[in-house]
């Protein structure tokens, strides 16, 4: 990356295995492209951290950030449960729990940075937007969804709660009854329903989410950047206390044998619908 040179940033896409980003005409685009569906494990986290560092250097010259997926199944299927299971099998529970806490602290740093970035952030989602993927989208200011998008918090099936800040952010945006429905039933919700409850700002045709996000970003360019940043800071507080609490609850739950059993069941599942809660 050519630090301090915006023209170079704009003309040179930053590409790594699981994601890449560009800055062009004030719009940062973060593309997710880790097969099969952008599962977030250690490698993805490291890449997101690199992006977070770059975001801090790019945001002075950008008014919008669009996050989208290039993977056909969807935006992001959430945490890499296979990696989580494998790692927890390779070490003592205390070490595994400590590793999980470290992972959560790091992903929270990235998502808090995206959440509070002084530019308007748009998640352009399609297909599977589950668990950690849903939480990534929730860190954004606007969600634009392809009509085939589905949202879900399936974590209870594993004996866990969402760990990437999902519940505090969902509570910030929606009524508690909706949060309870999604969390406690683990059911998935389509884009139309998500728009009805106020989660999604625009529902568009199949394959049109990125185009609509770009059109929205072009509109945002008309506004004074400092005013937009001040408005965002005023209306979108980071729920710091609940985010800390979430990490503690997640780690407490993770240490139970039932979670290991749930992870094993998912990893070894021959069920045709392992993604369904």
């Amino acid at each position, binding site marked *: 990356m050519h630090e301090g040179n915006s023209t170079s940033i704009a003309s040179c896409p930053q590409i790594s295995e699981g994601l890449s980003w560009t800055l062009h005409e004030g719009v940062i685009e973060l593309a997710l492209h880790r097969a*099969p*569906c952008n599962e977030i494990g250690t490698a993805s986290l490291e890449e997101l951290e690199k992006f977070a560092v770059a975001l801090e250097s790019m945001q002075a010259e950008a008014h919008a950030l669009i996050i989208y997926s290039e993977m056909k*199944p*969807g935006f992001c*299927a959430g945490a890499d449960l296979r990696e989580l299971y494998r790692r927890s099998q390779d070490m003592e529970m205390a070490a595994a729990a400590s590793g999980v806490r470290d992972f959560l602290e790091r992903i929270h740093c990235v998502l808090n940075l995206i959440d509070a970035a002084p530019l308007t952030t748009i998640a352009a989602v399609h*297909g*599977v937007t589950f668990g950690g993927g849903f939480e990534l989208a929730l860190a954004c200011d606007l969600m634009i969804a392809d*009509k*085939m*998008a*589905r949202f*879900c918090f399936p974590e209870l099936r594993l004996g866990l709660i969402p760990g990437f800040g999902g519940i505090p952010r969902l509570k910030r945006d929606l009524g508690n009854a909706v949060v309870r429905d999604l969390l406690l*039933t*683990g*059911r*998935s*919700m*389509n*884009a*139309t*329903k998500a728009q009805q409850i106020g989660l999604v700002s625009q529902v568009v045709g199949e394959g049109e989410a990125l185009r609509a996000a770009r059109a929205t970003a072009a509109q945002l360019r008309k506004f004074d950047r400092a005013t937009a940043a001040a408005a965002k800071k005023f209306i979108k507080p980071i729920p710091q206390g609940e985010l800390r609490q979430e990490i503690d609850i997640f780690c407490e739950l993770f240490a139970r044998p039932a979670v290991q059993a749930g992870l094993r069941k998912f990893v070894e599942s021959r*069920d*045709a*619908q*392992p*993604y*369904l*809660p």
Partner: protein
Amino acid sequence: MQTTDQTLEEILTLAAAHFKVPRQKLAPDDDFFKTLGIDSLQTLDLLTKLENHFHVELPDYELQGVSDFRTLAEKVQARL
């Protein structure tokens, strides 16, 4: 209100078009995972297609264990 048979026919047509399988190759009692050759993520696509087409909500847990078009049609019909 439409009948379950009409719902079934619409589901078969919808599935054939979305997964690019000839309609005549699909039968009501087929295991749709096998006939359509779909995995769990594609099953979510089918669920979304059905919800959008019929303007209903189908909670995932009501569909667990459902693998044939006829039962699927009954689940949809119950929500119309």
